[in-house]
């Protein structure tokens, strides 16, 4: 990963409390897994920034190295990597996602 990509990822994570690296945008996701996570955040009315990795191939590969995680989407909450689609779905279903949002003082619809 080049320095520019790393700095870009750092700045997105540092400047957005909830950011989702995804394929497509929250309004027009381009992959079922990205649809799923973005919908969960919408249902919970969490304010988040979607970052479209399809716009930049360096970013698309770079985020995988950055998180040491091979798939997209990837969700960061307050600088912490929380998981990909399977984990977020599971955490949404068992209530852990709400707990994290609560613990991190983020507003959401309960």
């Amino acid at each position, binding site marked *: 990963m080049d320095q520019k990509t790393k700095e870009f990822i750092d700045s997105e994570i540092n400047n957005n409390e909830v950011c989702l690296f995804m394929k497509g945008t929250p309004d027009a996701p381009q992959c079922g897994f990205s649809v799923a996570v973005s919908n969960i955040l919408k249902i919970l009315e969490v304010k988040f920034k979607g970052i479209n990795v399809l716009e930049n191939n360096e970013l698309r590969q770079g985020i995988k190295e950055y998180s040491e*995680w091979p798939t997209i989407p990837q969700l960061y909450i307050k600088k912490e990597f929380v998981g990909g689609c399977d984990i977020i779905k*599971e955490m949404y279903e068992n209530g852990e996602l709400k707990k994290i949002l609560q613990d991190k003082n983020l507003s959401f619809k309960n």
Partner: protein
Amino acid sequence: MAMDIKEIEKLIKESIPDALIEIQDLAGDGNHYSAVVTSSIFNGKSKIEQHKIVYSALKGKMGNELHALAIKTKEKNGSKN
């Protein structure tokens, strides 16, 4: 490129010998799978660590040949199993 269920199972078994693995071909197209992996290796680890163990067993195929593999990991409780 698609992978078949046996190949996925074999890779996971090689890295996680005690794994109980249930794989489903979700769309019947050899390309969209879900796997439930149960192993004592996951005990006490975070979900992220658990999934990373499965990803590493798949030796870089995840995100490449294997586009769509939904993973669910479960801890194995030795005494009750």
